[in-house]
């Protein structure tokens, strides 16, 4: 991987080199010598008068009186003797001149031909030189292309293609596996749902048999010795032993204001979207009933505390006073569209709780949800600071325990939701060693300490509450 500044440096260097090269090439191209204007060969030797000179140089004849006879001849010869020598001298000069001219014709011709040949040879050589220079510039320009294409040779192109094909191949193979795996996963999820339905059916059958058996045993048992304890019913929750008005005051002091509770309960509303006839067990002052009413979901509340019920009714909410189990048993099977009990089940004795869950299962419609929120005793702070603070709490319910009891009662799609995280800044804090105090042994000590802090935080200061959400299939 090249660094950005390295790539930039390479680009700048490359552009500078390109620029210098192009400038040098332009200078060279400008310096190529052009073909000069060469002198022309002399005009050809003018021989036009030579035939006439050769013909006319003789001005005296051998017999100056030729054709004359008698006295005419004699007179003519006398005159010739006087004038003849001058003509003969002239004729000798003419003969010498014409002879000279005749002798130099060849030399003139040869000289001109020689000059013409010399100029032609010079032109040819200069043209070759010009061609050489031009070829040299072309050669240098060709080198530019050669150098430019060096870095995009077929080798690099092939390499790029191979890399791309390899990348595509790996990606395609990965995607094929991913696609097949996710398709399989979806089918497994569908199969798990199917399995879940089958298990629910088996559990339901088992619960019905158990219920019938208990009814049969109760019907067949002698008077005064009912099955399941002295009263024939699981022991009732203990909260009825506390004065109602005191508990209202207790709630006001420790559970928070109505606004706080409303905000806290808002998260559960969407779980009951589309439901009808939801039961809010331990409805308290009716905060959740009001939220459901605002969402258009029909609901009613139940509480054993008379003061709470009065508060609900004053707000126009439907609420009943009574025992949870007794109320549930009074309802027709599969009549409830949902059930919520916030901070209630920790008030139940174990036997009461298991019976309550069994009955609740039968009273809920298929597809209806049950939500049970309670204090989280697996968080030590919650246990010591909240759970034991309330004297009406009957039994702490570990999240795993409650989850198991709910599954054992036939519910499906069970989900534990962690609530009320302990504030991070209030937890035990890590130590940070000052930079100047960092030695190996101190660092190891600090690390061990911090790991122990994490462990302690995990058990002491995790989540103060949790809710189990489950569904009747």
């Amino acid at each position, binding site marked *: 991987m090249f660094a950005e500044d390295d790539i930039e440096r390479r680009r700048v260097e490359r552009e500078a080199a390109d620029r210098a090269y192009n400038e040098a090439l332009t200078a060279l191209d400008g310096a190529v010598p052009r073909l000069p204007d060469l002198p022309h060969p002399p005009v050809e030797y003018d021989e036009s008068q030579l035939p006439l000179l050769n013909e006319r140089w003789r001005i005296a004849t051998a017999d100056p009186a030729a054709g004359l006879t008698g006295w005419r001849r004699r007179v003519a010869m006398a005159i010739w003797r006087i004038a003849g020598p001058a003509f003969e001298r002239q004729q000798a000069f003419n003969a010498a001149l014409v002879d000279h001219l005749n002798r130099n014709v060849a030399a003139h011709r040869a000289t001109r031909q020689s000059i013409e040949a010399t100029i032609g040879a010079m032109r040819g050589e200069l043209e070759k030189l010009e061609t050489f220079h031009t070829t040299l510039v072309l050669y240098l320009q060709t080198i530019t292309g050669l150098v430019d294409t060096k870095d995009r040779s077929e080798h690099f192109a092939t390499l*790029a293609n191979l*890399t*791309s094909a390899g990348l595509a191949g790996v990606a395609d193979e990965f*995607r094929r596996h991913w696609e097949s795996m996710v398709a399989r996963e979806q089918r497994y999820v569908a199969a798990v749902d199917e399995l879940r339905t089958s298990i629910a059916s088996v559990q339901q059958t088992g619960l019905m048999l158990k219920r019938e058996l208990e009814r049969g045993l109760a019907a067949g048992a002698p008077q005064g010795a009912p099955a399941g304890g002295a009263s024939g019913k699981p022991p009732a929750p203990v909260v009825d032993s506390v004065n109602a008005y005191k508990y209202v005051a207790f709630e006001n002091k420790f559970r928070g204001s109505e606004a706080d509770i409303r905000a806290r309960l808002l998260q559960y509303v969407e779980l009951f979207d589309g439901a009808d006839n939801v039961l809010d067990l331990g409805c308290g002052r009716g905060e959740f009933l009001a939220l459901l009413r605002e969402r258009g979901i029909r609901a009613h509340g139940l509480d054993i505390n008379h003061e709470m019920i009065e508060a609900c009714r004053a707000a126009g909410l439907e609420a009943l006073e009574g025992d949870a189990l007794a109320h549930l048993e009074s309802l027709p099977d599969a009549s409830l569209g949902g059930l919520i009990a916030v901070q209630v089940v920790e008030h139940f004795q174990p036997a009461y709780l298991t019976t309550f869950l069994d009955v609740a299962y039968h009273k809920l419609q298929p597809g209806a949800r049950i939500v049970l929120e309670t204090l989280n005793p697996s968080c030590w702070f919650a246990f010591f600071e909240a759970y034991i603070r309330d004297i009406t709490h009957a039994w702490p319910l570990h999240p795993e325990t409650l989850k198991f009891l709910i599954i054992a009662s036939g519910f499906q799609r069970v989900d534990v939701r962690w609530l009320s995280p302990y504030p991070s800044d209030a937890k035990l804090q890590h130590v940070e060693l000052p930079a100047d105090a960092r030695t190996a042994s101190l660092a190891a000590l600090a690390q061990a300490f911090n790991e122990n802090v994490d462990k302690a935080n995990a058990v002491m200061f995790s989540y103060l509450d949790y809710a189990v959400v489950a569904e009747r299939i």
Partner: protein
Amino acid sequence: MRIAWFSPLPPHRSGIAAYSAELLPRLAAHDIEAFVDDAAGHDAIERVTRVDGAAVRGAHDFPWRHARRPFDVIVYHVGNSAAHDYLWPYMVRYPGLVVLHDGQLHQARAQALIRQRRESDFRAEFTWCYPDVSPLLADLVVAGLGATLCYFWPMVHVPVQAARVVAVHSGGLARELAEAFPGSDIRQVQMGVADPLARASAPGRDVRQRHGIPDAAVVFASFGRVTPEKSLSAVMRALAQVGPSLPAIRLLVVGETAGYYDLMAEARELGVADRVTETGYLPDDALPEYLAAADVCLNLRWPTGRETSAAWLRCLAAGKPTVITDLVHTADVPSLDLRSMKVAGALPGGHEAVCVHVELVDEVHMLRLALRRLTEDAELRARLGSAARRYWESQGTLERMAREYEGLLTAARAAADPAAPAGWPAHLRSDGTGLARALTSDLGVPFPFDAPAAGRL
């Protein structure tokens, strides 16, 4: 309801063009104007085949028609091909019902922007969609090296987040999008096709005679454009292996040939050319008789853009056993695994297999099983064919899709325009006047349309 309908239309040879042409007459109770790509001028519109139920117009006419008399709903059919590039600017500026035909738009979007030399816009859009992914990946795509990698980053963010309501045909894709875009209204609408048997004019025997296929042959047919994505290469490799012991098998490939893929050359190389018939492009009205000529339909697809195949639904409607690729978005279709003869996937209320599936990681082997079993077992073919037809009747009729569209249109009409997402890239916020502003600036005059008078358009 007054509806604007952005979609390619025939004679454009795409599945979505045929889809719109089939669906629009079923929605004719509404006042629909279909807007097609008119970048090539008005000739482009004149070439569009007349569609019952809608007046066809060029997309450039949309803004003033909408300004003069607003549409109640604007429907955008978005797919992973260049045929849909033209509607993006409208989709971003005039939110409506986005029908997402593919769950993967990366290739088409990248090609559209890169073709327009808008690489920086592509990079900005990619980075906006995937802020946690290295922007170098966008450069890889710009360099032309990201073909397969595109499938990892589908780039559907813009259409989904610009829409009032998003509709997809696949339940799996709807779930996937709902998880990825919790603030968006994502809905599933069942895809539907017309009954191809209603249009069958000639028996399949004529087709067989035309192509020299014996009456006794068991014909495996593939429909649609002939590309490597149809996995015909794997089919022919399987055919080469089982062919010698199953002389009755023939492969009939019906569809336009892609220039870059030579099916017959590959068939010759594998020694199965005498078993393979390639028809080339056929008009839609010829398809019913070719469907009738098929014993089994091959509807394989890889890689996938998560599209729902209308071609496959037509095969089901024709009562044909089909072989499909096992994909995430079709995993809930009850299909037969020929290795175990168990039914995978489930619909509420039944476990009857309606097709045979082939896993991508065991493709050639499962295709061998499919070729052998479906050739030899006529009873299985008949059973799958009947189940396929019943599946189409309950899930895939055109009438059902039209009914569901009515619900979608109503929801889209009632929905509010979404707020522009945070960090929306600048080119998506552009009002389209950039060139005009540059020109007026060059001329030294102020841009005259900054505050148009009401009713100016």
